[in-house]
């Protein structure tokens, strides 16, 4: 199953099969993060979203995040699935599942995964607001890099 721990899909995401990927007899804790499409952001209403990915590189970066996590929290196992295309309100955009013998690592590694996804994985979100549309990440809406510039040390392996 190792080669399908990290996926980009165009169909609705089911959570349970992703949890199954990280289940192990030695793991007593599994955390999942489910990112869904939110209707309201700072008073602005979203009608729907479009996600675009540079698919082969995105999957490589998911695997890189998985390796980083295994290094930082030994004995954890990570699976990530991200959906692209058009997503409506409440649709699942991303699921991250982490299993670990103990719960602390499962929480920490899971949160680390979503932070890293937002830093290094080439996936873009186009918001279709009630009053227009924008690619998020551009300077008009939100620059995800803290100092306004991508930081090469975050992304190089």
């Amino acid at each position, binding site marked *: 199953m190792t080669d399908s721990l990290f996926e980009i899909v165009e169909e609705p995401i089911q959570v349970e099969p992703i949890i199954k990927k990280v289940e192990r007899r030695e793991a007593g804790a599994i955390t999942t993060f489910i990112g869904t499409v939110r209707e309201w952001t700072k008073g602005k209403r979203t009608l729907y979203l479009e996600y675009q990915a*540079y698919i*082969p590189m995105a999957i*490589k970066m998911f695997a890189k995040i998985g390796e980083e996590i295994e290094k930082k929290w030994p004995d954890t196992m990570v699976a990530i699935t991200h959906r692209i295309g058009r997503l409506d309100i409440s649709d699942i955009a991303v699921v991250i599942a982490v299993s670990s013998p103990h719960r602390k690592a499962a929480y920490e590694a899971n949160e680390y995964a979503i932070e890293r996804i*937002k830093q290094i994985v080439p996936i*873009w979100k186009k918001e279709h607001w009630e009053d227009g549309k924008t690619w998020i990440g551009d300077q008009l809406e939100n620059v995800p890099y803290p100092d306004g510039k991508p930081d*090469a040390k975050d992304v*190089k392996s």
Partner: protein
Amino acid sequence: MIKVLLFAHLQEEAGKDQINYDRESITVKELKTSLQNDFGLAELEQVMTAINEEYAMDEDMVKSGDTVAFIPPVSGG
């Protein structure tokens, strides 16, 4: 020939998702400047670059046969 991939707003600005650029070798920085001139891409300063699916720096060299992707600030998750 260098294959250049565009995503998100860059794709819309250029009106295409791929550009074939005829050069033997060029730095990332030079490639960015050249594409800004030729395709009116407004802003490539905040845009990261990947060469063959690995992040690269402005000083890195691109050679014929490479695939370069311009990666605007990402917003997945």
